[in-house]
């Protein structure tokens, strides 16, 4: 603190250029720059230590582990790319990858559509609008485990309320637990329940930025409700859609809580996704090298998607 005050002193005599690093004499500017760096990095230090130790270090470590064959706590043996080669011929891995892609392909568009629909509804004239909005976003407060357990309760194929309701309208018992397709549908439905609120909030913020005059002039030009939605609302919430697309794809690729608790990847491998498969390998069968390799694939897919997004989105400057 005292040293700070001393180095700071010359700056006080030149209040005209307060924070720009471009002092007139080179020596003074070098001291100044050093001082600025010391200040800046002192503020950053706690963040850099946490992120460095608990994110970057494990990332590098994970890469190294993925070249090793390990079980349990030992370091194991260096096996080069053997884990990655094994992935190529592992049907469980391919099934998990395909399920992850399918899950994403279902959850992302459905949750975006539902979110936008709810947002449009909540942005219109409606009695008790605040209450309705609260109810739609309330699932966000529920933990993933509780959400998944409620899902288990509702979709229990013997005692669950879902089958009783379906039975009441004449649809016979759906095998939510023993049937692969039905189980997959149930985890998608539960995920949608959990995610719609977030999407609605982001869309609602986007909608409130649209000027009412736009709708007014479109109406004067004879545009109907659908046309106004299609040609004003949809393009105007483009930046929100872009942001939500990225967030939801990343979320879907990393889905864990709901599937792990609801189905644990079953029945068979019908709902197994990359993360539950990596968890199974890393912590059940304790093949940590192999699990790390699966993690690296997940990382590559995420990075590739993010890069694609940034490359091909014209609206990327809006989410800098």
């Amino acid at each position, binding site marked *: 603190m005292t040293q*700070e*005050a001393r180095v700071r002193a010359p*700056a006080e005599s030149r209040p005209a250029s307060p*924070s720009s690093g471009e002092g007139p004499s080179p020596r003074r500017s070098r001291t100044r720059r050093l001082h*600025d760096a010391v*200040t*800046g990095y002192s*503020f*950053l230090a706690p*963040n*850099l230590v946490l*992120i460095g*130790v*608990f994110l970057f270090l*494990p990332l590098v*470590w*994970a890469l190294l582990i993925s070249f090793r064959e390990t079980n349990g706590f030992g370091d194991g043996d260096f096996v080069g790319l053997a884990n990655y080669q094994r992935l190529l011929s592992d049907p469980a891995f391919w099934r998990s990858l395909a399920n992850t892609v399918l899950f994403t392909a279902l959850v992302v568009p459905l949750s975006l559509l539902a979110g936008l629909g709810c947002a449009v509804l909540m942005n*219109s*004239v*409606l*009695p008790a609008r*605040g209450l*309705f909005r609260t109810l*739609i*976003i*309330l*699932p*966000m*407060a*529920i*933990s993933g*485990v*509780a959400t998944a357990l*409620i899902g288990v*309760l*509702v979709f*229990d194929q*013997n*005692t669950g309320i879902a089958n*009783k309701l379906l*039975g009441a309208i004449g649809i016979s018992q759906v095998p939510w637990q023993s049937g692969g397709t039905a189980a997959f549908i149930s985890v998608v439905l539960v995920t949608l329940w959990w995610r719609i609120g977030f999407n609605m*909030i*982001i869309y*609602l913020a986007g909608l409130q930025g649209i000027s*009412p005059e736009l*709708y*007014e002039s479109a109406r004067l030009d004879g545009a109907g409700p659908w046309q106004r939605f299609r040609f004003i609302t949809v393009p105007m919430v483009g930046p*929100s859609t872009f*942001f939500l697309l990225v967030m939801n794809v*990343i979320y879907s690729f990393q889905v*864990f809580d709901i599937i792990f*608790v609801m189905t644990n990847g079953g029945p068979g491998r019908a709902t197994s996704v990359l*993360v539950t498969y990596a*968890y199974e390998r890393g*912590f059940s069968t304790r093949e940590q090298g192999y699990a*790390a390799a699966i*993690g690296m694939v*997940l990382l590559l897919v*995420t990075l590739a998607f*993010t890069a694609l997004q940034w490359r091909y989105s014209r609206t990327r400057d809006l989410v800098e």
Partner: protein
Amino acid sequence: MTTAPHAPTPARRRPGRGAALRLLAAVLVAGVLMSPLYWMVVVAFSPRAELLATDLRLWPRSFTLDNFDRVFSGFPAITWLGNSVAITAVVTVLTVSVSLLAGYAFAQLRFRGRNVVFLLTLSTMMLPVQVIIVSQFRLVTDLGIYGTYWAVILPTAASAFGVFLARQFIIGIPSELLDAARVDGAGSFRIFFQVVLPLCKPLIAALTLLTVLSTWNDFAWPLIALKENSLYTLPIGLLYLQGQFGSDYGATMAFALLSVLPMVVLFLVFQRHFVQGFARSGIR
């Protein structure tokens, strides 16, 4: 967030039908979304026989507190609650402090390497936690904190999300304010504590609430980092409880209800801050 409605005019021209349809849609959507929570509450307060009945019952016919008794008599539910409170409190204080400090540096200070370090920090938001979960596990084991609170707290606090949120907020503070303080002879630390922090109350509120919510509900990492039953947080305890009861859902739902109640209350009370926090995370 709760601004006045932009009254769309179809309502003005056909007030009856449009409004009724919208209300109907809203009731349907809210009803469908609330029904699982309603069912959780019903099952939590119903005897086991109710659930096993084969006919369709949408409301409870009898009321019991047995399920809650079964939870409290057989499981350290209060300990789990205490663990959740302690871990959430420490993670939140850490995350908010670290994020404010870093956010200020990224937003208002100029120094060499700032942008590179910011991008590196930001890039960790794209990093799936599950990619590093194996090596994180080995890291906390090597650090000797495996099986303690710290094994959960430290990796959870290592998050770039709060830093990003703080930077986006603090960058909006007019630099004239900070320059004026600097002219008065204040150093960066005094400016941070005396000028920036008092202006950051909405940010601190949103950041605190979002961190509390996500830490309270966190699952994957605590599942791995906590080995002893007595250290479990509520979500881990809930899963453990379900493992014991299986398809006897009453007790599980009773505990599920108790474990989500604090966050539901918090969410309802501070809804505006949550919504603004989420919205701000997406749109600068």
